[in-house]
């Protein structure tokens, strides 16, 4: 790829090492949302922030190559449908949004019924919202200076 895009070599190398760990931390926060502080809201945005870090370090072209823009609405739709499916499946337990799965033992990862699955569904929504923010910055602002540069100055 083009070496001039993005920041210097040191930043790129450190980013390449760190991105995986930050992504792992976000997934940890999502999965442990019912035990410790955090949850789908915070963890989803942390996952989205890894892509922003990637964008800032490597430039726009690299992330547009890795994450096609058409895949983000798909992710968001999957998240929303998953949340709605959890709600409808609550009719097995008697009513809408019933917590009908086995509850397990407290302070363990597999506990609290449908709450972890709802956390994952919400995290998908948040990731897609954060990526929408990135592409708002990338795609929408890309045309502006070239178009209005002559008119404004």
């Amino acid at each position, binding site marked *: 790829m083009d070496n001039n895009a993005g920041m210097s070599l040191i930043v790129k190398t450190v980013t390449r090492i760190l991105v995986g760990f930050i992504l792992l931390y976000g997934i940890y926060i999502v999965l442990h949302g019912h035990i410790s502080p955090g949850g789908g809201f915070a963890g989803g945005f942390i996952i989205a922030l890894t892509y922003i870090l990637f964008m800032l370090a490597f430039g726009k072209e690299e992330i547009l190559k890795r994450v096609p823009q058409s895949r983000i609405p798909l992710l968001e739709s999957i998240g929303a449908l998953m949340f709605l499916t959890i709600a409808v499946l609550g009719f097995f337990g008697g009513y809408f949004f019933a917590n009908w799965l086995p509850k397990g033992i407290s302070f363990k990862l597999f506990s609290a019924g449908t709450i972890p699955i709802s956390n994952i569904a919400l995290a998908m929504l948040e990731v897609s919202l954060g990526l929408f923010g990135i592409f*708002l910055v990338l795609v929408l602002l890309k*045309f502006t200076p070239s178009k209005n540069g002559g*008119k404004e100055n």
Partner: protein
Amino acid sequence: MLTYLLCLVLFCVGLYAILRKRNIIKIIIGVVICEYAVNLFLIVFGYRANGRSPIYSQDQKIIDMVDPLPQACAMTSIVMGLAITALLVAIAIRIYEKYSTFDITKIRKLKG
């Protein structure tokens, strides 16, 4: 009482920015500040003196918890704030592309 009053002052600062400023980015900043004030007021409203965070811990019986319900509502509100900000920035950029200014009075002049 003083804490509630300071939240109200923060909201009034945001309201002043929305009403008085002519730059669209300043208006967006005013909306963001109003959001901060509302979230802060919700959390301050549910605070219990010398309370603990609403998370159970192993082998401990916690009775003096702060109110968890406003926290759950404010969590939703914070995330909505980001969506609102993104939408407002998108609209502002579109306005800039069409009129090449951020000043709302100029936009009104161009419309005739």
